[in-house]
């Protein structure tokens, strides 16, 4: 065990800190995970993307040949940690492009596809959305029915997607369709890259419980997609996207965002009162704060154990579901705890002039589903852990 970094790594950390000093955009910066806020000052964020890209820090873990930064695992850790510490915006504007479209392109794309898409993703010029879920295919994603039929050099797509985040802003979609209805369900699926401006494609925003609209329904009516826009082979769609999701990095940035939130909750508890005393002196409140701090710290250290496996060249398996499960607990409990600390003020909606901290805590309380339901619900994570780590039988 050794928590120190090499001299080269420390030099890299100094470089990151200097960069932050010179380039970090000024912003309200309350909650790094807040999409609304994340999109609030686009020109500044665009500049941030360009500055990062000039350093090779967008797509930092991608190979240099495709325009990535070729960063080592420990450099990636340092970059993420230093950025998260100062509540920096995300490391690149093209959120899903960077998270899984790019990695899928790197692994399965043709040279033409890579040339066309990777540059704009790295430069933050293009927003991607993800068309996987359907009304009848959520946790059981492989049950998807959206149909694509080959017609000459095109596929003709008919059907519907739902819960498509950022669909109303995106220029491109990574789409899963069924090309062979007779094949076993995981094998009849194909992955297409679709311009959102294609005729026959309509986007209908869905209002969320917090009043915002960040995801949408997407309808396909005879939408023609060139075969040249197929990612991977026909019938390979499941592997293309499964691998891409496995590319999700460890949870360092999430841990820091949660640490910052807990710090703000402690600050809130010092300002609010209970029975005439600061709420932070209330034993019940103290227990709940400390227990959450302990869980976040465990999440951080679990992450370091997983990164160590990667550094030692061992494959990472289902362990990452452990931190996803912990995170889900904390996302929900932090909103509930903040409400309880607010006391009567907890009844106020975000827009009330009396709302504490401009309604920040109401937002936390009403905005956890992206991190809890999106990308696999806790029940599904528990299935993954039970089956792949503990070897218990599949229930379906």
């Amino acid at each position, binding site marked *: *065990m*050794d*928590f*120190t*970094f090499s001299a080269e*790594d420390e030099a890299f950390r100094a470089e990151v800190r200097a960069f932050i000093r010179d380039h970090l955009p000024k912003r309200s910066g309350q909650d790094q995970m807040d999409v609304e806020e994340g999109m609030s000052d686009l020109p500044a964020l665009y500049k941030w993307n360009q500055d990062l890209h000039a350093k090779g820090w967008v797509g930092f873990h991608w190979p240099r040949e495709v325009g990535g930064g070729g960063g080592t695992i*420990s450099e990636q*850790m340092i970059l993420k940690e230093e950025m998260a510490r100062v509540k920096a915006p995300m490391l690149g504007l093209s959120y899903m492009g960077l998270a899984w479209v790019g990695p899928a392109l790197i692994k399965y794309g043709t040279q033409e596809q890579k040339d066309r898409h990777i540059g704009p993703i790295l430069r933050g010029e293009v927003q991607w959305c993800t068309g996987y879920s359907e009304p009848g295919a959520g946790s059981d994603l492989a049950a998807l029915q959206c149909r694509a039929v080959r017609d000459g050099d095109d596929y003709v797509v008919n059907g519907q997607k739902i819960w498509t985040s950022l669909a109303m802003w995106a220029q491109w979609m990574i789409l899963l369709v069924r090309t062979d209805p007779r094949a076993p369900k995981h094998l009849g699926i194909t992955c297409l890259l679709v311009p959102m401006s294609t005729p026959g494609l309509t986007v209908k925003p869905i209002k969320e419980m917090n009043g915002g609209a960040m995801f949408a329904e997407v309808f396909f009516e005879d939408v023609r997609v060139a075969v040249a826009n197929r990612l991977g082979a026909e019938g390979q769609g499941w592997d293309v996207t499964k691998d891409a999701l496995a590319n999700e990095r460890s949870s360092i940035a999430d841990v820091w965002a949660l640490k910052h939130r807990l710090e703000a909750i*402690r600050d809130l508890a010092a300002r609010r009162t209970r029975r005439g005393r600061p709420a*932070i002196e209330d*034993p019940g409140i*103290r*227990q709940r*704060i*400390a*227990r959450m*701090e*302990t*869980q976040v*710290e*465990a*999440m951080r*250290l*679990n992450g*370091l*154990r997983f*990164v*160590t*496996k990667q*550094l*030692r060249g061992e494959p990472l398996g289902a*362990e990452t579901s*452990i931190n996803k*499960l*912990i995170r889900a607990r904390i996302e929900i409990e932090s909103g509930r705890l903040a409400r309880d600390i607010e006391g009567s003020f907890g009844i106020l909606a975000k827009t009330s002039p009396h709302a504490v901290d401009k309604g920040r805590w109401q937002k936390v309380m009403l905005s956890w589903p992206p991190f809890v339901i999106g990308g696999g619900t806790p*029940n599904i*994570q*528990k*299935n993954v*852990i*039970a*089956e792949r*780590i*503990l*070897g*218990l*039988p*599949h*229930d379906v």
Partner: protein
Amino acid sequence: MDFGFTPEQDALRAQARRLLDQELPLERILAWSAAPSALDRALWKKTAALGWAGLTVAEAHGGLGLGAVDLIVLLEEMGKSLCPLPLAATDLAAAALGALGDGAQQAAWLPKIARGDVVATVAIAEGSDVPTADGVAARAGARGTDVTLDGTKLFVPDGQHADLLLIAAREGAGVSLFAVPADTPGVTVRPLVVVDATKPAAEIALAGAVVPARNRLGAVGGAWPTLARLVDRQTITHAAEMVGSADAALRLAVEYAKVRRQFGSPIGRFQGVKHRCAEMLCDVESARSLVYYAAWAVDHAPDDVPSYASMAKAAASEALDTAGEECVQIHGAIGYTWECHAHLFYKRGRQSHVWLGAPDEHYERVMTVLQHG
């Protein structure tokens, strides 16, 4: 950056597993727990010959000179086997001698400890399970070149097996620590009757016990700051055993869930069972990460020790308390029988949960550190 073990530490773990599987299978622990008897001195000597008793004792005194991380590798494996050997207690006493003892005191005791000839423990607590300076009421009074000890120590880990007792007593305005051979006249050691017989503890009555003043470790009334650090060490090593026990309880439940069939299917297929197991794994791994870091901090980041010791203990307490209980439940009625090993883990969980402080006490300390550094 490396948050994993060295090949040497992996080898130590494998050695421990082999020996414990061979010498202390759970059937033996079960039989022993029905009628706890004297310490198996032959087995203790055997492990001492492998270097366990002197693992963290300096090489100059016949030990291996290893650190807290090496120690918790052993303790985690011992926890899996519910092994009742007094390793944690003896290590704590050796650490106390290392920190407070002078050259002569160390030379007198440490080599014997490392050889396995002397089992040792530290007696700090009395009325309260979390040892505090205020809680030390036993008194030391000077009498010429001797010191007389009076009072009662409680919850002394492995006290009934120890040849050497390091006893904390009030002296002047502070707390001193004395090396007291267990056979000193005026010292009466009684085993406490505990829920978990695999985790022995004792009561030590001191009635005018006399030791030479040169048996005082450190300055008059000056032992507390060191003892406070040692309590953290003890908390961490205990949490390491708990993580091992929680892991073993979970595995026992999981293996049963794979073979027991009801409604035409292994019960491990039912989410009421499998999801509980997944949650337990999540909690065990989290406690494990906290314990590993806390142990590392003992030798490398002393400022981090208080809060990480508390986080580790709180998380390990919750993980084991639940894993032991679920282990009984997942076994159904068989889990309630004496023959099933589940109750051994359940008892370890219920007992260890409060030993050295229940989670609420530790969360309170985490909060204090967060607020005041």
